[in-house]
């Protein structure tokens, strides 16, 4: 079997100082800058007014009673169930009772939900703009160079990832182009940012995208609270009550034994 000759490319050693190092530095600095920009631009969490808070927490109260009913004795559970279902069905906890039964307002026209969308927009912008700028900067100045050789062998699949911008068919995938170094930094700097900025920093775009998927507390736009209250009233009504205190003394004697 013929030995594949080791490829050697004579590179200017200065490439390292003038390309690799600046790209890394710029990436780190933009990350830090993005973190502070996000912190500065972040709007304070929106204050709920009293009636909205009442609406949300009353529903949560009902959910609590429904899931922990077994700690109550039967009379006190029945009293709570009756009070809650009556209030839910009459709409006593609604934020604005006179709007009951109407279609929920369009989220686009509601100024309070506009705020949330603006916040998400701002974050997106803080991510997209610097990335575009750096990418075009690298393309304009450093495209087409091979800047380093990785110290470990790689399979051919990595070629398209590591040698983006260098269209040479036979080159060993260990050689890396500048734009590939950029992508590596883009995905791999999370731990550096953690070290510099603490764990919950806003420098990394991956974490932010994950965060946006997270659940939103309270009523999302387009959800009718009245319907949720009615559903909760029904849930409460169908509970078959038992108490954790039923037969507890026998359980205790059995478990500990005299």
């Amino acid at each position, binding site marked *: 079997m013929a030995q594949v000759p080791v490829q050697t490319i004579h590179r200017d050693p200065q490439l390292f100082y003038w390309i690799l190092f600046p790209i890394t530095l710029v990436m780190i600095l933009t990350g830090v800058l993005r973190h502070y920009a996000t912190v500065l631009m972040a709007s304070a969490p929106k204050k709920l007014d009293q009636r909205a808070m009442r609406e949300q*927490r009353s529903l*949560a109260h009902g959910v*609590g009673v429904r899931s*922990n009913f077994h700690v*109550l004795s039967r009379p006190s559970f029945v009293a709570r169930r009756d009070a809650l279902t009556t209030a839910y069905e009459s709409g006593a906890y609604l934020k604005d009772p006179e709007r009951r039964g109407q279609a929920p307002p369009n989220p686009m026209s509601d100024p309070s939900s506009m705020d949330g969308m603006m916040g998400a927009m701002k974050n997106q912008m803080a991510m997209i703009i610097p990335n575009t700028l750096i990418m075009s900067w690298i393309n304009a100045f450093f495209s087409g160079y091979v800047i380093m050789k990785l110290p470990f062998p790689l399979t051919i699949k990595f070629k398209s990832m590591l040698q983006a911008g260098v269209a040479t068919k036979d080159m060993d995938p260990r050689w890396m182009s500048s734009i590939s170094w950029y992508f590596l930094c883009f995905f791999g700097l999370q731990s550096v940012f953690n070290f510099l900025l*603490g*764990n919950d920093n806003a420098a990394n775009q991956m974490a932010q995208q994950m965060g946006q998927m997270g659940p939103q507390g309270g009523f999302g736009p387009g959800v009718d609270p009245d319907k949720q209250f009615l559903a909760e009233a029904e849930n409460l009504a169908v509970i078959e009550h038992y108490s954790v205190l039923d037969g*507890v*003394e026998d359980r205790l004697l059995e478990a*500990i034994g005299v």
Partner: protein
Amino acid sequence: MAPSLLHPPSQLSPGDALQLSQQAPILLQSSAGAASTSLFSGLLAAPETAALWIQYENLLLSCLRTGDQRAAHLCLERLIARFGDENERIMALKGLVKEADAQNTGELENILKEYDQILKENNTNIPITKRRVALLRSMGRLSDAASALVQLLDFSPTDAEAWSELADVYLVQGMYPQAIYAMEEALVLAPNAWNIHARLGEMQYMAATAPGAASGSYQKCMAESLKRFARSIELCDDYLRGYYGLKLVTNALLKEQNKLAKQSEEGEFSLPETKTIERLNELATAKLSEIVRRSTAQETGWRGYDKLEVEAARKLLSDEATAASAIER
């Protein structure tokens, strides 16, 4: 367990609180600037942690308790420098320090007016609402405190702290059914809290034995009390308060077992058989004496008990022993 500044100091004994507040100069010096504003040093310094600010808050509380106003003000200044004047929690702490500084009732009235003013601007400020309740209570206006709490709980019914405070306010006024209702709400929010189970047991026992209590509800209250104590022991092994309560309830029940009616209403808790009550009483006696013996001997694993509670258990046991020997004679 050694007292730590990372836990709220409300449950500490006076000695521990003093010990904590004596750490104030060290902590205040070691993190001198605390909030550094320059970007460069912010990058190099160790990242700021939430633990530091919790320490400041707890230190503030301990210092107020031991009368170290100077250190308390220093803590407050740093908290304000970090979080700003408008933060709800900081506003409550500021109010707390002012209350501690107040010399007479007139000043307290002024602070109360300030709270009302703040709440007029922002009626969802829960920390200030709670401060107002606490201030009303310490000024002796219990019914005002109760109605303020009821207002708070109307728009925030998932607040276990407020429910248990309400229960306590009702309890000191002797309004047992209301207190029990409020405590049950706290239990719904924390279904496995053995201390709340035991507390409910105590409340039921008080409701049953209070002078002027309706005689019809005696048996029902005692039955639930017994079950609550049993549940608290089931949730937490060797729980002194639970066993103490169980012992008290079973003692009372055994003493007047012939007076008790057999049948109770449908759906309510009924008393267990006399034999079961006797066995429960034996169990409680055995466990209590074990706890007293072992915690007095400072055995490993038995040291966490409150001294006063152990003392009360010892007294209960010895009282019973003397009563029993008197009968034999």
